[in-house]
């Protein structure tokens, strides 16, 4: 880890002859920090990797290693054969798909409205949309449970309620991501489009939406990841065992004597999420470079400050 130079918070990039002396004297600080981070990463990831490992256990214990076997992956005892696990995996994927399909358009359109509307009418909507970020998920789950069972009876518990709950929970994240990107798109671009003869709809379609593409993509990725892992709201909005998600199954089965197929089911979701997010991130990098917003850097402090502030935005 050669990124370490002098110890303490000194920028490692600015070199110089005088620094070399300080470098050798103070190296230990930087190394200690690096070692600390390595320890942290091991502590953070090892338990998960071990849990994945146990899905290949030859015995039926989830904590005592009894040899290597694929029995929980293929064959009669496999996770895909067990209706409970299989249904939960499918249900989780269904919910995630629906959550992304609803939250992204809903959130992006609301963000554009909040970002381009000149007037104060948008404040309440903005505050309400981000409220789920400042209350514990349990409170929101409880509130929506009551809403659905005591008032909006036409929404039944189960998949419909679960989707609605997840969408409401994920919406603020989509809005934060999109509004961040939107803030870095000067409305001058849309004005230029109008100036050149595009109607407002044309400006929206041909200029704003393409420039928002990275945020839309990022929102979809985040929505998927959050939905797959969601527990509290999905639990409270569920009805029968047919509406169980994988986190719910894990919660119910962990303290019991479930077989390592439980680990396998968790691993399926984990790997699926990682693969999807990695692929999504790769696409995101491409799209982001394509839509890189470039404005003339005025040779004034204004331009430099603007560039500096812009870097903090998604």
């Amino acid at each position, binding site marked *: 880890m050669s*990124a370490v130079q002098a110890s*303490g*918070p*000194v*920028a490692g990039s600015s070199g110089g002859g005088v620094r070399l002396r300080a470098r050798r004297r*103070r190296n230990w*600080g930087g190394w200690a*920090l*690096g070692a600390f*981070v390595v320890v942290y*990463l091991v502590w*953070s*990831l090892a*338990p*998960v990797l*071990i849990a994945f490992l146990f899905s290949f256990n030859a015995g039926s214990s*989830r*904590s005592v290693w009894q040899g290597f076997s694929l029995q929980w992956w293929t064959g009669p005892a496999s996770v895909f054969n067990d209706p409970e696990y299989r249904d939960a995996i499918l249900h989780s994927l269904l919910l995630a798909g629906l959550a992304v399909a609803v939250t992204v358009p*809903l959130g992006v*359109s*609301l963000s*554009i*409205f909040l970002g*381009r509307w000149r007037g104060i009418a948008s404040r309440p*909507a903005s505050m*309400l*949309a981000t*409220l789920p970020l*400042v*209350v*514990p998920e*349990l409170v929101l789950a*409880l509130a929506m*449970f*009551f*809403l659905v069972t005591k*008032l*909006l009876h036409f929404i039944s518990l189960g998949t419909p309620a679960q989707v609605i709950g997840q969408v*409401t929970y994920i919406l603020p994240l989509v809005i934060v991501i999109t509004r961040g990107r939107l803030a870095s798109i000067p409305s001058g671009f*849309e*004005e230029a489009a*109008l100036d050149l003869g595009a109607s*407002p*709809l044309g400006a929206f379609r041909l200029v704003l939406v393409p420039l928002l593409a990275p945020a839309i993509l990022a929102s979809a990725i985040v929505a998927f*990841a959050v939905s797959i*892992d969601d*527990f*509290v709201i999905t639990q409270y909005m569920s009805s029968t065992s047919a509406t169980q998600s*994988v*986190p719910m199954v*894990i*919660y119910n089965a*962990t*303290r019991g004597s479930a077989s390592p197929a439980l680990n396998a089911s*968790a*691993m399926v*979701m*984990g790997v699926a999420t*990682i693969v999807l*997010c990695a692929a999504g991130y790769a696409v995101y990098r491409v799209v982001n470079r394509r839509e890189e917003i470039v404005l003339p850097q005025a040779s004034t402090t204004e331009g430099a400050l603007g560039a500096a502030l812009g870097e903090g935005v998604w």
Partner: protein
Amino acid sequence: MYPRRQLATLGLPGTIWVGLFVATALYALVAIAVGGIDPILLSPVPTWNPLHWSFGNLQSVWSALRPFNGPDWVVFERTVIYIAIAMAGCIVIGYPVAYFVAVRARRTKGLVLALFVAPFLVSYMLRMLAWVGLLSPGGWVDSVLGSLGVVGSQYNWLSGRSFVVVLALLYGWVPYFILPLYAALARFDLRFLEASKDLGANPVQTFFKVTLPLSRQGIYAGMVVVALPMFGDFFTAQLVSGTSSTAMVGTLINTYAQSQTDQTLAAASAVWLVAFLALLLAPYLRSSARATAEVAG
């Protein structure tokens, strides 16, 4: 610039959605909390009209949680202690990591970032499942520490151990603490450090006088991101402890919610919890607003 009507149509679905599923839902929560129970069905009845609100449920929850006196006070006290310790742990562990990735490891940043984003992509439940596996009798932690003689041979890690709950909370939430802190530190202009060194400060002084104060907002943001879910947590304690001796406020609310007749108490407890959190968050929101004003000028 866009015709007002078209823009309003764009915002309409979202506004209706949050009006319904956030505002009305929270109002429904309040309506249950101030409502009564149907005598026949024994299910909670929401009271929508503020004029008919009854505060009995709120009062009984308050008296149960009354500071130092109420029977459930210990639950609240315990929750605050757990969260405080877990939060301290998050700061002690999370700050150096965030600092390292944001300030020092600019070159290998991609790899380290990927590695510490990975926990987000693996569900919270799975990460708890992993620890249950390790701490179960015969599990790797249990057998290693048992053979080292650190604990007795029949030591049950997963039943009623407070420190296990705290460690689980810490393990679960420290990545969520690191992320906003990293974002704040990544924006940190390294030239401040150069200026400080230029003015004669040694690295320790620079850290305490320059880096730490300027990253304060990031630390607060991380604390908020992490504290809020912990106050609503019931599943962590359930998974790694499972007894009422480690019950948290969230456990209380969840238990009430499972029984139909107690749902009014669940709602009332939730209302009190939100009120408490609002009080707790107020200074953060104020300081965050002030910080934004300072930067925006």
